[in-house]
């Protein structure tokens, strides 16, 4: 009876130990990833898919650099949005301020802000949503001194995805507004 009890306890102790070890291992792996956040994007290339998503999306807003072009040297051409949202993130506002600064310096340039949605909505609603996103970007550019007659908006809804994938990461790249030189 006692022997059985002892064995049982021993087994539990061993099992408990194993769990702790497992947890510790897991934790340490995670900490390493977190600590090296600067090289996150680079690491994301070889890491597993979930970590990759973590590095490229914040909430469901795309924060990576894939598909991002340049309006001018050092000035990214696009900003990204959360699902069904038109709110500009901190990073988006920074990008748009760079665009506005460049546009103020190059006052002969006019632009079209193209608004896009991902494929997870009805076509007509997405046309409206794209227009709203493009206008969110336009309004911000105007706040930073670009006159409205230099900015046209054009909504493509879900008609012009940059990424043809059917997954959250692809969708996040497609929810965007892109500032394109018009002249």
């Amino acid at each position, binding site marked *: 009876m006692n022997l059985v009890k002892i064995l049982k306890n021993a087994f539990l102790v061993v099992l408990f130990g194993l769990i702790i070890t497992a947890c510790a291992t897991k934790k340490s792996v995670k900490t390493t990833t977190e600590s090296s956040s600067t090289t996150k994007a680079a690491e994301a290339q070889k890491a597993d898919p979930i970590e990759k998503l973590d590095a490229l999306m914040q909430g469901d807003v795309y924060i990576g650099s894939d598909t991002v072009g340049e309006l001018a040297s050092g000035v990214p051409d696009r900003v990204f949005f959360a699902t*069904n949202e*038109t709110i500009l993130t901190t990073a988006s506002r920074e990008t748009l301020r760079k665009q506005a600064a460049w546009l103020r310096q190059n006052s002969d340039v006019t632009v*079209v802000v193209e608004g896009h949605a991902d*494929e*997870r*909505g*009805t*076509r*007509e*609603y997405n*046309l*409206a*949503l794209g*227009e*709203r996103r*493009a*206008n*969110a970007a336009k*309004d911000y550019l105007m706040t930073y001194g670009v006159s409205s007659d230099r900015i046209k908006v*054009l*909504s*493509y809804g879900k*008609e*012009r*995805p*940059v*990424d*043809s*994938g*059917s*997954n959250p990461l*692809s969708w996040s790249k497609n929810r965007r507004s892109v500032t394109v030189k018009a002249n």
Partner: protein
Amino acid sequence: MRNKFLLLFIFCLILKPGISYSLVEIDITRGNLDPLPISVSPFFADEISKEKIKKNLNIDNLGIEISKVIENNLRKTGLFDTLDKESFLQKPDIAHLKPRFEDWALIKSQVLITGKVTSKIINKKDYIRIEFKLWDILGAKMVDGFSLTTVPTNWRRVGHKISDKVYERLTGESGYFDTRIIYVAEEGPKTQRVKKLAIMDQDGFNTKYLTLGNELVLTPRFNPTNQMVTYLSYFRNMPRVYLLNIETGKQEVVGDFPGMTFAPRFSPDGKKIIMSLAKDGNSEIWVRNLETNIQEKLTDHPSIDTSPSYSPDGKYVTFNSDRSGYQQIYVMRSDGSKVKRISFGKGIYGTPVWSPRGDLIAFTKLHKGKFFIGVMRTDGSGERLLTENFYQEAPSWSPNGRIIIFYRETKTDEKGQGFSAKLWSIDLTGYNERLVKTETDASDPSWSSLLGN
């Protein structure tokens, strides 16, 4: 999900000797699991007519072809079981004069369609005359029939008109076969789709392309009263609602709006176009009268208001709006007053389309990452989901309000490959879901009214 609507099928065979015009009937208000056995005898043509028609149309036996059009139409309703021609015992010409009812009863046929094609010359021009008869086998009598004379190239339409007559006689509802479907034909990779307006007969034949694909075109919709179409074109990168006459090819911008106009639909009388105008980040619903050129704003709200659709009496408009936070369905009077939300289920609701019968609104619903096509009553009660998929939307009603056509897009694989867009149709009961064959990929279908003569 369909099990929910799986009810006992009711198939009525009413025998009323003495009353000659209502012998066979089908109750199509419920799913039909036991379709009515029907025989379409090849239409008979004499040798002289055959030769003449061959010269005109290069078709060896038009009679057989017409019977195939009818057979195909009836089979696809899911309500009829078209019997194999090989099992027919009687010759087409004799059957058309007077069927030997025992022979047809022997192969378990309950209804028989026979016909005759003859060529005719009127004012030195070639015509075809097509005669058809509908027979009740158990009642042993003819229950309907007509004859039509038309130009030879119209032969498929005659097949559709006969199908409509048969459907009407046997179900008590108007048909939907002599109709066309306008849609957007799609080609190319997902990131650079080339889109063209296309039109075809309801059964997928006679496809014609109405635009060249130089500019993006979306959401074509028929005028319910004539052969005009309204759609969205990105001509010169200015997305605007256009009006197109599909007979003449003439097109024009609808109205003079200071921003993108989209989501157009005709009023039931065909005299107005209701649509959205997006300006400064806000989409509102507008209506433009095509006769008076007066345009009027119907909604006034900082949210997105779009996808408007009139009730068949023209008194109400249903639309979707995200004024509550997410897309939901609303109904208002056609002057914009008395706006009322009607969708309260879980999920996001869009693309409401009022049924031609007036009692239902078809919609798209997004819930837990899946897209549904469903119907609800016009007060939002009685929601029924007909079909679930990865992505599908844009329901459009058949003119008799029995069938809903929509488009479905496939999920791509890890490499972003395998995208396709196709048209599908489903019966109001949730039964009989079918791929609608198109020459290319297709989306945004709109069903025409029954064509006139």
